[in-house]
């Protein structure tokens, strides 16, 4: 928990997150579109970078998010991921794979009237945690599950 506090302190104490850093050195103009922010998130090479780019400090773990992934993926090229959020006012769902070279796989924005549910398929380089990060009412929540990626033999 100390680490958690340190991360908070870092944020609160004016420490520059990645985005802040870019802004400071002029890579992000004030008022630049949200799209640019997200591009940084997709380039993130670690969970921490991805969270910084998304403007997340510490997302709360939430049982109101249902993440369906296989326990074992026979092939890392296609890992089915379904996320269903029962959190009120869910605005966005992000899918992240902790050990991928680029951590953020996809994100979805749900306008009024669209259910906070999505199914897609992602690539996984190796056995890793898959994380669903949900933005609801302006706050971030998360749930994570491990997917084992196995080596294949012949056949099929």
């Amino acid at each position, binding site marked *: 928990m100390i680490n958690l506090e340190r991360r908070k302190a870092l944020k609160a104490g004016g420490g520059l997150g990645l985005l802040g850093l870019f802004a400071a050195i002029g890579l992000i103009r004030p008022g630049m579109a949200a799209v640019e922010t997200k591009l940084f998130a997709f380039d993130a090479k670690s969970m921490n970078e991805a969270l910084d780019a998304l403007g997340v400090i510490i997302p709360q773990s939430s049982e109101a998010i249902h993440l369906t992934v296989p326990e074992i993926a026979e092939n890392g090229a296609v890992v089915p991921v379904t996320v269903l959020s029962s959190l009120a006012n869910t605005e966005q769902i992000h899918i992240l794979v902790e050990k991928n070279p680029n951590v953020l796989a996809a994100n979805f924005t749900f306008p009024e009237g669209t259910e906070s549910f999505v199914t897609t398929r992602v690539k996984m380089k190796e056995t890793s945690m898959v994380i669903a990060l949900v933005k609801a009412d302006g706050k971030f929540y998360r749930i994570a599950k491990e997917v084992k990626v*196995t080596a294949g033999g012949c056949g099929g």
Partner: protein
Amino acid sequence: MNISILKNAILVFAMASYCSIAFAEGSVPKEIAAYREMISDGNPAEFDEMRGEELWKKPGGPNKVSMEKCDLGKGTGVVKGAYAELPRYFPDTQRVQDLESRLITCMTTLQGTLESDITAKPFGGDNYKPEIESLVAYVVGQSKGVKMNVSLKHPKEKEAYEIGKRVFTYRAGPYDFACSTCHSQDNLRIRMQNLQNFSNAKDAQDSYTTWPAYRVSQGLFRSFQWRLNDCLRQQRFPEPKYASEVTIALTMYMAKNANDGVYAGPGLKR
């Protein structure tokens, strides 16, 4: 940013719901089955079927003729259900043919394409999709829901089956493998993948009726000729010639053993 803080933050992030899953002996096949079920919807082979249908219907080859006059065994132009009765004996060529060899016959005789142009690179790869593979996708898709009904009535069909059965058990190469080394017992796996027992009707049906297939590991549609080619590669054999008699005989053996199974391709595979 300090590296150790980075690392720690990641740890905290992952810790809450992380647990190492111990797999009981029997749960692995169940998990694999669950995975397959989860990916079974949305098969990209549909795109190959679409492309194949276009190729079938539009004028092609040096003769600028469509494939619609091709006889796949059920009469000129009949595609529906044709794959479920292949391989079969064709009086015009006086030999037993599988789908691919029959498509070659039509592409050469109707469209005037050179056989060597078709067989030089018959399998897809990066940014390359041979016409014959898309035609295969279209034709097999037209047998979806049809019961496999391969005949051995003609003596040459019977002979092809008998030869296929023998090729299946022919042990050779540096590993001493035959097809039967891996495919003649029930409930075995290579790594995580189930091995079908082709002398068991249920296994033969499950396997044969779901090939050709879109292979997610390769992101490509694969024909039955490709399936055999890659099996023989892993058997450490030299390469079988495309649509040759040895491959047709093997196909005949497996197709006949799958009789009465309902054809369900193109499949979606690991």
